[in-house]
């Protein structure tokens, strides 16, 4: 053993260095936390262009934080849409986007570091957040703005019957992308019923010529499999309507229920039909290995005729592709499998949940739930649709946005939210993705796929 030296007065001087460090830390933190605590002056009157923001006035010099999964360039449009509101009312909205949003939000909320707002794209995640007890109920004005929406939306922003989060954007998933140019050349009509769609697919397959009627891709990094959940959801909603769909979401109707099995068989006859897929890419199995972004490209070269994908797929077409009813690419509304189901529309959307009831937070919440804000966002750039019925439809300049907005605000439509976003994350963002991917990649039997998903359902 080494004999250790024993000098005279060790402790006091050793302590000096950490003390200096602590001082440095304290100094640094007092410098960098420059939060303004300006007094609210509720008597402010806004005039000129700012006059319309009068209801939100009186919180000048405040700041709210917002956390979401939307990234640049989409988030830039979002920030632009409320820049006038911010400069008029003096409420700064500090936006933060992250592609680890789903996991980070839970860490921050349980860690006591919740943002003022979170834009939550899944009702399932909203329910989880409400369970933490940190989500604040919206003010009366936000609730009143809710009347302008199809009532089903209010349900998706509610947890156990209590309304928490107002919807912001909406997207339409029940679309089939096709090429009007090639349809016209071949003399094909856009099908309006499921039977027509199947007949058309068969006709295209028989015509041959190196092209197939359908293409698809379910690859999406760690989220691989989600496009396949959409196909199944379309089949369930289009065959049985909203009630069975809701029961399926809450697991009252299991995956191994004969109804869901039959819907899976519908999908198998459509997207796993070797004569119909995968146009321009390969065989049925290639659907599992193709990324959803690349899946539609063969339509441009006429190797494939149709792709079922959501409205946001528009961003994936190469620059210079003309999108419109008489262009290179357009989309039609996927018809219901069962003609008795009125106009099924499957969609997604985002909900604004607040974690604070400070007056400036409520002002922002009220503004973002209004039709004024939705119109402002529509004007900034295309590729964004609101299901708010008070938004002037003539504002939509893009044909796909117009098509989606018409379907989403149609009062007769059977609108339902993406089921996998509402199921528990262990299923909707886990086992269902895995099992459906295995279904496409390995050709697993339908009963096994269904049983695997049921087995993983959290008790």
């Amino acid at each position, binding site marked *: 053993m*080494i*004999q*250790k*030296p*024993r*000098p*005279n*007065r*060790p402790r006091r*001087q*050793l302590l*000096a*260095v*950490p003390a200096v*460090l602590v001082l440095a*830390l304290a100094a*640094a*933190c007092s410098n*960098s*936390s420059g*939060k303004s605590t300006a007094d609210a002056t509720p008597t402010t009157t806004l005039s000129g262009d700012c006059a319309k923001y009068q209801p939100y006035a009186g919180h000048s010099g405040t700041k709210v*934080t917002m*956390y979401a*999964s*939307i*990234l*640049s*360039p*989409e*988030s*830039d449009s979002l*920030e632009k849409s409320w820049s006038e509101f911010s400069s008029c009312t003096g409420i700064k909205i*500090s*936006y*933060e*986007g*992250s*592609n*680890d949003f789903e996991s*980070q939000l839970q*860490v*921050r909320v*349980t*860690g*006591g*570091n919740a943002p003022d707002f979170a834009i939550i794209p899944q009702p399932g995640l909203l329910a989880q957040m409400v369970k933490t007890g940190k989500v604040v109920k919206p003010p009366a004005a936000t609730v009143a703005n809710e009347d302008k929406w199809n009532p089903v939306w209010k349900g998706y922003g509610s947890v156990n019957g209590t309304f928490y989060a107002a919807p912001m954007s909406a997207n339409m998933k029940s679309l089939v992308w096709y090429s009007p140019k090639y349809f016209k050349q071949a003399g094909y009509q856009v099908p309006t019923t499921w039977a027509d769609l199947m007949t058309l697919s068969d006709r295209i397959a028989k015509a041959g010529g190196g092209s197939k009627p359908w293409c698809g891709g379910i690859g*999406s*990094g760690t989220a691989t499999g989600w496009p396949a959940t959409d196909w199944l959801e379309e089949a369930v909603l289009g065959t049985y309507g909203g009630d069975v769909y809701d029961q399926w979401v809450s697991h009252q109707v299991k995956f191994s229920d004969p109804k869901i099995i039959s819907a899976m068989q519908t999908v198998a006859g459509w997207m796993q039909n070797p004569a119909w897929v995968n146009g321009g890419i390969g065989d049925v199995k290639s659907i599992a290995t193709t990324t959803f*972004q*690349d899946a539609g490209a063969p339509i441009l070269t006429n190797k494939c005729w149709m792709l079922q994908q959501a409205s*946001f797929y528009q*961003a*994936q077409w*190469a*620059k210079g592709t003309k999108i419109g009813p008489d262009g290179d690419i357009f989309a039609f509304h996927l018809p219901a499998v069962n003609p008795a189901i009125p106009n099924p529309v499957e969609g997604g959307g985002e909900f604004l949940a607040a974690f604070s009831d400070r007056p400036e937070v409520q002002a922002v919440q009220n503004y973002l739930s209004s039709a004024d804000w939705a119109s402002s966002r529509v004007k900034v750039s295309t590729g964004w649709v609101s299901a708010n019925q008070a938004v002037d439809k003539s504002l939509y300049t893009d044909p796909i946005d117009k098509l989606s907005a018409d379907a989403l605000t149609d009062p007769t439509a059977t609108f339902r939210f993406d089921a996998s976003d509402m199921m528990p994350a262990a299923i909707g963002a886990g086992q269902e993705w895995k099992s459906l991917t295995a279904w496409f990649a390995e050709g697993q039997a339908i009963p096994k796929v269904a049983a695997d998903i049921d087995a993983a359902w959290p008790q």
Partner: protein
Amino acid sequence: MSTQPATVPSKAVGAAEATGSAAVRKSFSSPLGSVFVIAVTVLWTIPTFGLLATSLRPKQAVAASGWWEIFVHPQLILSNYHTVLFDGGFGVSAGMMPFLVNSLAISIPATIFPLVLAAMAAYALAWVRFRGSDTVFFIIFALQVVPLQMALIPLLQLFSGGAHLGGLTIIPAFDLHGTYVPVWLAHTMFALPLATFLLHNFISQLPRDLMEAAVVDGASHFKIFRSIVLPLCTPALASFAIFEFLWVWNDLLVALTFAGGTPEVAPMTVRLAQLSGSFGGRWEVLTAGAFLSLIVPLIVFFSLQRYFVRGLLAGSVKG
């Protein structure tokens, strides 16, 4: 790096070191050894080269074909770098620059703090005799096995809510949100066990005669630490500084949790993660950003690398 003889883990320590490293050097200078080393180096460099090639190709080309197509259809552009460096987004007008500053503001203090604390702790544990010093050292050593992820939420709760026992406030809730401080503290805490362990092994091997001579001359512990220990353990300090700097620079998880992604405090890694876009399709911008973020670690590495090998070997192999 791989051409340097000392990186080869060698049993030769002390007297045997000279002959051992000579043998290694000899075996690497043989033609077969050279070919092997060159082959490994080339293989090792291919992914980095692919990254560079992708960052120089236009968006359509990146989406359509692999980077190796660059040899067949050389179509090189610099606009991806321009986008990353100067184009706005997320409320930032200057592109990558504010995030680069944040990265430096996080990495440099988060390297210095654990280094200072760990060096002092290592000295105390190695040379100051007090009851239970071995136990303390063992506990610190054992803390290395605690995964960082387990501490994220409790630590965040501590920063945002303080610590309370019943009605008694033990640590008050500091309003640290939106500052660098939580990130510094978190990185410092996570680095201390390994830093103390490595430096302890190095410092405890310093010759006892030196310490005794200093005590005889009337030097205090602080004097010994400052005048003898610190200069002698520069290699160990430098090598750990490189380690810790690279770790903090490349860290995303701690920064995301404790700093958030606002442009005021978020480091480059957070920005890089955002660059690929909502649907993860913007590879050309992501690769350009990744390449830019390589520059600072390379500068740090090359300026301190002569200490690297010496320091780590000395600290890890206890004689």
